[in-house]
């Protein structure tokens, strides 16, 4: 039975080896050679003597499956390792003082470095502008004399409202969600973004009426 099985295997082997379809004569030749090798090796006491081809392959399958699972789990763990649980960054939502801290008509730059926002108050409301240029992500400067945001990288200009009017910037600066917290202080949430070109600046969450 086993010999038959081996003979069959040899048959496919010879076909592949020669890169041809197996013909009836070739496999028998190969089979004979295979048998010869097998009988010769029995005398020498090599591998085939103790472990049959079939059991060897079943062990090999188990080994490969185990190895694949272990390797998969290993790489999954390494991938997970690259995503930290704790970030050493300023929080995405934070309080920026009371409405009375902000003067009408002024752009407040005090949160620019830490939180990346400009606070602007006009006669009716306060809004939080993103300090990320919509061209390629540099940080523009607020030029008080010229009353505009000017990006040093490629010269994009934005008005106090955040709307672009010069340079390569394709769209206005973004605004963040802003609301009054229970303690009367202003809370800014950077996870919620409002874009002018999508008409989102009309959203009551995008400004704080004072």
């Amino acid at each position, binding site marked *: 039975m086993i010999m038959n099985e081996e003979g069959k295997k040899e048959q*496919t*082997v010879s076909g*592949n*080896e020669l*890169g041809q379809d197996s013909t009836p004569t070739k496999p028998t030749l190969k089979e004979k050679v295979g048998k010869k090798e097998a009988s010769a090796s029995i005398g020498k006491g*090599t*591998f085939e003597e103790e472990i049959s081809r079939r059991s060897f392959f079943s062990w090999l399958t188990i080994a490969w499956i185990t190895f694949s699972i272990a390797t998969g789990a290993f790489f999954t*763990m*390494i991938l*997970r*390792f*690259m*995503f*930290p*649980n*704790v970030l050493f960054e300023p929080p995405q939502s934070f309080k920026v003082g009371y409405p009375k801290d902000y003067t009408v008509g002024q752009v407040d730059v005090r949160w620019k470095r830490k939180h990346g926002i400009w606070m602007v108050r006009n006669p009716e409301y306060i809004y939080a502008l993103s300090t990320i240029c919509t061209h390629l992500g540099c940080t523009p400067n607020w030029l008080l004399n010229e009353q505009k945001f000017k990006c040093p990288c490629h010269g994009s200009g934005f008005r106090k409202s955040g709307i672009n009017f010069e340079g390569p910037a394709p769209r206005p600066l973004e605004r963040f969600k802003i609301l009054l917290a229970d303690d009367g202080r202003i809370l800014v949430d950077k996870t919620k973004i409002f874009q002018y070109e999508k008409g989102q600046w009309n959203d009551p969450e995008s400004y704080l009426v004072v």
Partner: protein
Amino acid sequence: MSDKKKSNIFQQLGKSQVWKSIIRSGIPRTRRQRMMSVLNSLFLHLHPVRLPRHAVKLRFTWCMGGLTFFLFLVLTISGILLMFYYRPTVEYAYTDMIDLGEQVPLGIMREIHRWGAHAMVITVWLHMFRVFMTGSYKPPREFNWAVGVILLLITLLLSFTGYLLPWDQLAIWAITVGANMARATPFLGHEGPGAALLALGDINFVHIGSDVKFALLGGRFVGEAALLRFYVLHCIGLPFIIMILMAVHFWRIRKDGGISGPT
């Protein structure tokens, strides 16, 4: 039917340009082809094409060399991963080490590295003990024994440099004590024998600010400079040297008749 299909797929794979460009010799079917596919692959050729059955007997080799190499790989991978979260500065080193256990995903990564390091020192010693007891250091393997002794030294130096990185009290004082021993190095340490001879009149060449301990710590005591120095040695310098010597070690084994084989 499905068997035939499968073999056809493999047949096609073996003929494809991708397979041929990488494996070169097609699907190995004969002994010669198997040998060629091993010899033609960078990764496979590290392993011998064939090895005598008795050579891998566990009771002879204890598999200690292989285990040492395995632990080295574990330490390399876990060490690289630790480097993503650890900053070798006085301000951050200790807290980063704590964070690695408490906040970073898979908090056991540092423990794997630590226990792996302990285990590697043990397996290196056992490997040398086995080699000694089986007389495998004898010619023509005496050069490889010498390489192995240097590898042991570097393994211990890797342990020593890694010891400082947690930057806790144990680390700082252990390295203080260890570095103080360097003061007594002959000629190179300022308290060592012969150091006083290296002088020109009143000028001492080897003094507290110019001896081997000073070079090791990058200063007069274990501080910021020492931490950075040990970090670079631990992560780049010593691994670089040990990998070159490991390549020599493995190559020499193959050239001298394989593991535990006759020469």
